[in-house]
C-alpha cells in the first residue's frame, strides 16, 4: 500500500492496455512456465520472473534473458488461472529495458526492435533486407552464411523485395507518430 | 357574536374560472335563506364593491369570507391578506383556493413560458411588437402600475391562515349549504364549530366507495385516453384502463364523474394522511401495471413496463390536475427562458 514507486508498480504502469489481473495476484502455480514453448532457453522461467518482479528484484529481472526469449505466443496468458497477462508483462519489461537501455549488448532483440521501429517510422512499412543488415552481426559466421543462403533462395523465388515500399501520406504518418513519442525523425 | 346584526358574508375570486360563484347560486332556494341570514359585505361578482370599502371595515367585520381562486399575482395576495384581516372565518372555497387546481398547472412551466403562450406565440393574437405586461410603465399622465405576475402559483393557505376548506371544482351544492349551515348554526344557535383547518362537506373515504361500478383485481396492460375508448358500462373505469383518480380522492361528490363514464379527476383532493395525491395515485396505478414478472430477464421486464408507461401521456398533468400547488414538489424545476416543464 506504500506509494513509493516500486519496480513491480513501474512494470504494472507500463502495461497500459494490459487488461489482465495485477501481477501481485500470481499464485506461483507455474502454469505459464509449464506451457511456455521457449522456456528451455530462458535463464529464469516466466513464473520466477513474475515472482522476482513482485519481489522488486529489478536488476536481477533485467539481467535475465527471459523477456527477450518470450515469443509472445500468449499461451501462458490464456491459461493463467489468475488471469494475469504474462506475455503483456514480458512486453512491459522489454519496454522498460529499452527505454532505460538496461539490456546487455549481446542481445539481438533490442537492436532489432529499434531498427525495425526506425524502418517503419521512415517508410511506414517494414523491409526485410534493411532489418537483416541491422542484426546480422548478432550471428556467428555459420548462421550468417545460412541466412544469406536462405535469403538468396527466397530472392530467386521472388520472395524478397529489391526496394523498400513506402506509404503515400508519409508526412502525416510521421507526425502521427510524433504525437505519441518523438521518434522516427528523418536524420 | 352578542350583537343582533346580521352576520356579514363576503365572496371573492382570485385566480379562478368563476364557476365557484355560479355554484353558490346552485344551492337553489337555500340562497334565500342565505340572503335572510347574511348581509353581503363584499361580493364583486354580484354587487359593486370597491377595495377601499373593505379597507374601511373594522377588523373581523366580515363573518365569513368564501375565497375562491388560487394566488397567481401580487393583487391576489394583497386581497387575501386584506380579507383575512377583515374576516372572522376564512374559507378556502373550491379546488383553486384549496390546492391550486388548474391555474397551478402552470407551475409545470415558467412565468416567461406562460407569457409567451399568452402574449406571443399564440395564433389567436396580434401583438407585432411582442409587448408583454410590465409591473409599471411611464406614460404622459404619469406612472401606471399593474400587479406583479408570480412565477409560482400558490394555494390560499400558502399565503394566509385558513379556517375551513371546501374542496371541489366546483363544490357541490349540498357541501356549500353544509358549510354555511355550520357557521350560521354556530352564530345563531351557538352549536360547536368543527376544529380549525377541517375540510368540510367531504367524507374520509375515497370516491370508489360512492361509485357503484363493479371493481375487480386490477391488471392494466395499457391505458386509454377518454377519446380512445367507449367505456363498458357498469365496470370500473380503471379496470378498463381509463385513468380514474377515484381511489386516491376524497369522497363526498357521490362519484359524479365515474357514474357518467368519465374518470374521476381528483378535484376533492387527497385522502387524510396522504402528503401528495399525485404520487399516491401514480404509485397505485403503476403497481397494477400488468407487465413484467420475476421469471423474466431484466431487459424484457423493462421493455414490457415501458410499453404500458408510454400509454400514459402526461403523468404530471394527470396526477396533479388539481393538487399541483399542494404537491410535495409544488412546481417544476424549469429553465426560466423557455419554460416547458416537459423534457
Amino acid at each position, binding site marked *: 500500500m506504500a506509494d513509493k514507486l516500486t519496480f513491480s508498480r513501474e512494470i504494472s504502469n507500463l502495461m497500459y492496455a494490459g487488461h489482465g489481473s495485477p501481477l501481485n495476484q500470481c499464485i506461483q502455480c507455474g502454469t505459464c512456465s509449464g506451457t511456455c514453448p521457449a522456456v528451455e532457453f530462458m535463464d529464469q522461467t516466466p513464473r520466477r520472473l513474475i515472482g522476482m518482479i513482485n519481489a522488486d528484484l529489478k536488476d536481477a529481472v533485467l539481467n535475465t534473458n527471459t523477456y527477450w526469449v518470450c515469443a509472445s505466443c500468449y499461451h501462458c496468458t490464456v491459461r493463467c488461472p489468475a488471469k494475469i497477462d504474462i506475455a503483456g508483462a514480458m512486453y512491459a519489461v522489454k519496454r522498460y529495458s529499452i527505454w532505460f537501455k538496461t539490456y546487455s549488448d549481446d542481445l539481438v532483440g533490442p537492436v532489432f526492435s529499434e531498427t525495425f521501429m526506425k524502418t517503419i517510422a521512415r517508410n511506414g512499412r517494414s523491409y526485410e533486407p534493411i532489418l537483416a543488415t541491422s542484426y546480422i552481426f548478432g550471428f556467428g559466421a555459420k548462421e550468417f552464411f545460412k541466412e544469406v543462403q536462405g535469403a538468396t533462395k527466397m530472392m530467386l523465388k521472388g520472395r524478397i523485395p529489391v526496394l523498400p515500399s513506402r506509404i503515400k501520406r508519409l508526412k502525416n504518418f510521421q507526425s502521427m507518430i510524433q504525437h505519441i513519442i518523438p521518434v522516427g525523425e528523418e536524420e | 357574536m352578542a350583537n343582533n346584526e346580521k352576520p356579514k358574508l363576503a365572496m371573492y375570486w382570485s385566480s379562478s374560472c368563476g364557476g365557484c360563484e355560479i355554484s353558490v347560486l346552485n344551492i337553489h332556494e337555500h340562497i334565500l335563506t342565505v340572503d335572510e341570514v347574511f348581509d353581503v359585505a363584499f361580493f364583486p361578482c354580484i354587487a359593486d364593491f370597491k377595495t377601499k370599502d373593505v379597507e374601511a371595515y373594522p377588523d373581523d367585520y366580515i363573518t365569513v369570507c368564501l375565497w375562491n381562486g388560487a394566488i397567481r399575482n401580487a393583487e391576489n395576495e394583497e386581497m387575501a391578506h386584506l380579507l383575512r384581516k377583515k374576516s372572522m372565518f376564512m374559507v378556502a372555497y373550491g379546488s383553486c383556493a384549496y390546492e391550486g387546481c388548474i391555474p397551478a398547472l402552470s407551475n409545470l412551466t415558467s412565468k416567461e413560458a406562460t407569457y409567451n403562450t399568452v402574449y406571443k406565440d399564440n395564433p389567436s393574437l396580434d401583438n407585432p411588437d411582442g409587448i408583454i405586461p410590465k409591473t409599471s410603465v411611464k406614460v404622459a399622465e404619469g406612472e401606471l402600475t399593474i400587479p406583479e405576475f*408570480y412565477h*409560482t402559483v400558490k394555494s390560499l393557505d400558502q*399565503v394566509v391562515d385558513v379556517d375551513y376548506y371546501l374542496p371541489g371544482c366546483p363544490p357541490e351544492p349540498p357541501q356549500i349549504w353544509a358549510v354555511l349551515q355550520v357557521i350560521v348554526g354556530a352564530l345563531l344557535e351557538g352549536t360547536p364549530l368543527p376544529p380549525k383547518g377541517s375540510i368540510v362537506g367531504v367524507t374520509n373515504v375515497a370516491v370508489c366507495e360512492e361509485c357503484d361500478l363493479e371493481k375487480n383485481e386490477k391488471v392494466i396492460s395499457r391505458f386509454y385516453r377518454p377519446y380512445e375508448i367507449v367505456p363498458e358500462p357498469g365496470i370500473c373505469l380503471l379496470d378498463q384502463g381509463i385513468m380514474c383518480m377515484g381511489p386516491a380522492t376524497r369522497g363526498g361528490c357521490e362519484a359524479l364523474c365515474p357514474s357518467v363514464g368519465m374518470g374521476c379527476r381528483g378535484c376533492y383532493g387527497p385522502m387524510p394522511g396522504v402528503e*401528495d395525491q399525485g*404520487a399516491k395515485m401514480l*404509485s397505485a396505478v403503476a403497481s397494477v401495471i400488468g407487465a413484467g414478472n420475476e421469471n423474466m430477464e431484466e431487459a424484457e421486464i423493462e421493455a414490457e*413496463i415501458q410499453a404500458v408507461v408510454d400509454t400514459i401521456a402526461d403523468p404530471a398533468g394527470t396526477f396533479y390536475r388539481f393538487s399541483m400547488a399542494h404537491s410535495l414538489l409544488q412546481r417544476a*424545476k424549469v*429553465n426560466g427562458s423557455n419554460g416547458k416543464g416537459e*423534457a
Partner: protein
Amino acid sequence: MSEKYEPVIVGFLCNWCSYRAADLAGTARIQYAPNLRAIRVMCSGRVDPQFVLKALRDGADGVMIAGCHPGECHYVNGNIKTMRRFMLLQKMLTQLGIEEERVQLVWASASEGIVLAEKIDQMTEALRTLGPLNWKKRVLNSGNGYQAAEAIPVLEEA
C-alpha cells in the same frame, strides 16, 4: 460544503439484499463516497413515490432505491412492482425538470458489496457534475416567499 460540493443522496435499501450489501461493503472495508444516507425498508416495494419526492423537497440532491436483482426478491416480486413505479415516476420527474441521474434504481444482492459501493460512487460523481438541487431554496425560493421569475436561478434541463 463550500470548497467542494458534496451531494447528499437519500438511499432506500431493502433489508435482505442491498442493506446487507452495504453492510458487507463496510465489513470488507471497501472505501466509497460517504454521501449516501441509508434508510432501511423491508423491501424496495415499500418505497412509496411520496418518499422520493419528500426527500427531494427536503433537500436531497438525489435518491437511490436499491433492491434485490429481479428474480431474487426475498418477497418473490416486490422489486418488479418497484420497477413499475420507478419507471412511471421517472417519466413524471422529467416533466418536473428533474434529471434522470437524480433518482436511480439499482440492484445489489447481499453478496455484492462492491457493486453497491461502485454504484454509489458513480451516482455521487454524476450528481457532483449536475450541481446542487436544493429544492426549497433554489426552486421554491425558500418557503412561501415570492420572487419574480427573473430572479429564479435558471437550471438548464438535461
